[in-house]
């Protein structure tokens, strides 16, 4: 790089820009940091005035998140044998005993199953469709592509009415399969668009060489094209996974028990006597942290993906 360039910003303007951006980043992090801090507070600490930044950390929120508890009288409490686990001890201090596990574990598992299931399906179907759109003459290809994209303009609630009725008829309400199919249908438009972009970038000559060497179309597809598109497929998969992971509107309308995911469940965590904010924060932390780590770790591919998908049209 030359030491003198008209387009290279001056050292002073870099400092100025850097300071402002870092300041914004720090402010934007406050709510997220607060979620994580609150998870380690005791319920009284979480609602103290002024808000406590320094406090004695406690795992009560996490214990409350994973258990259901019942309050018992002093005599009954005294009659019990001493607590044999650390979490039992935390609960006893509030004059309560553990009644059983909460539903959080199940709901979290549902999020994992539905998230990964629908991502897998969207990627398989999306890659096939994107390859066909990229390489073959398909009648009305542009209209079909636009149709695929326009399905994203429907408000989820508007789609939810007939899907609710349809799922009720087919017995798909509140099932993992129903949610996986639904999220796949929502994700596939984005997947096809993103993946078509990635596959368009792979030179056709590779496949044509393979075809001349006697590969069938299908062999050329999975032995030549798929390995080349691996990065694109991976970053598309992350987008699909994040969407399915975060989705709320369909989940709250179409699931209530067996297949309920974490987003509709977390806001309903209620402690004894009002909302248990440390438990809510603990649940939110466990739920949000994987996405945050993912985002930071894979930032190169992700940031490119967001703008790529939006700008390419």
């Amino acid at each position: 790089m030359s030491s003198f360039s008209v387009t290279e910003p001056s050292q002073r303007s870099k400092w100025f820009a850097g300071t402002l951006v870092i300041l914004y980043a720090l402010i934007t992090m406050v709510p997220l940091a607060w979620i994580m801090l609150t998870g380690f507070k005791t319920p009284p600490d979480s609602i103290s005035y002024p808000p406590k930044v320094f406090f004695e950390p406690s795992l009560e929120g996490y214990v409350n998140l994973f258990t259901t508890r019942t309050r018992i009288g002093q005599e009954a409490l005294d009659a019990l044998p001493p607590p044999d686990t650390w979490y039992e001890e935390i609960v006893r201090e509030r004059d309560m005993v553990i009644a059983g596990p909460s539903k959080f574990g199940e709901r979290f598992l549902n999020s994992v199953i539905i998230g990964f299931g629908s991502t897998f399906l969207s990627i398989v179907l999306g890659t096939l469709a994107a390859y066909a759109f990229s390489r073959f003459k398909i009648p009305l290809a542009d209209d079909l592509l636009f149709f695929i994209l326009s399905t994203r303009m429907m408000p989820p609630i508007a789609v939810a009415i007939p899907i609710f009725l349809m799922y009720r008829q087919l017995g798909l309400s509140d099932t993992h399969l129903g949610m996986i199919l639904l999220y796949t249908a929502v994700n596939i438009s984005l997947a096809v668009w993103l993946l078509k972009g990635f596959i368009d970038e792979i030179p056709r000559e590779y496949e044509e060489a393979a075809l001349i060497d006697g590969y069938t179309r299908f062999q050329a597809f999975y032995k030549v094209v798929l390995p080349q598109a691996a990065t694109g497929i991976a970053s598309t998969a992350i987008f699909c996974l994040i969407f399915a992971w975060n989705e709320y509107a369909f989940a709250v309308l179409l699931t209530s028990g067996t297949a309920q995911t974490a987003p509709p469940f977390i806001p309903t965590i209620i402690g004894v006597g009002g909302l248990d904010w440390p438990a809510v924060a603990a649940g939110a932390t466990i739920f949000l942290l994987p996405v945050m780590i993912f985002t930071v770790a894979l930032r190169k591919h992700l940031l490119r993906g967001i703008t790529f998908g939006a700008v390419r049209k």
Partner: protein
Amino acid sequence: MTETPLSRAAQATPPGVARKIRGLSDRAIAWIFVGPTIFLLLAINIFPLIWTIRLSFTDFKANRAGREIKNVGLRNYERILTDSDIWLNMQATAHFLFWTIFFQVLIGFALAYLINKKFRGNDLWTTIIVLPMMLSPAVVGNFWKFLYQPQIGLFNYIVAFFTGKDPSSFEMLGSVDLAPWSIVIVDTWMWTPFVMLICLAGLRSIPDYIYEAAEIDRASKLRQFFTITIPMVLPFLMLAVLFRGIENFKMFDLVVQLTGGGPGSTTELTSINLKREAFEKWRTGYASAYAIILFVTVFGLASIYVKALNKVKER
């Protein structure tokens, strides 16, 4: 599709022969590959849409499945378009749309402009700024409710700290004046990074030589900003506005968690109102007509906007 010797040969070969030589013909493979996607979209998007259109002309109620369904013609549409409450919801949505887009464009562009100064560590800080938009709006919105609590909430405390007001003297979510702004604040916090990323892509697409030429012509930095930077980022910015516009017109999860539409119906955006009609009052036919009206509105507005966008791009 570009003409290559191979594709010409493939077209010249009768399909039957092609199948014998290399398994399935390209045409068959194309349909096998696209088929499942189209089928899924037809089953889960188009079929429901057609069903919604049909229901919108009836008085069907989903919680009373056995009841006889009556055809009511256009009465649902008529009632919606003349209902003054729905116009209030439309206004709330318009307020939300306008101000979220206004702030997100302003802050998003400013941030992108600053990040494009390429200071050290800019990609890590960009990632940190992007974090809110990757998270679940429902879970985050629910927690913002806690930040907005009068007295104990962090947001009220910080505002009070800087303005000297009593933190329990104002309710961000409970007061008619403030609630529409509190949802704007959270949405702006969450989605400004999206506008920022698209602007950043726009800024990075401007080739250096244009600025170099302007420098040789002795154009001032301010002049360069208004005659090069702004016009060249504009198509990107307009695209970001389109995406945010469509998304926020559909807004449900964040706001339903924050305010549930209240107080009264001051933050009852159309999607929340629609959910109430469809899944609480169970007026399925009526809600279907409502859904169709919303869909046509988004689709119409988006199409007009895309036309304008293409004009800007052609310049």
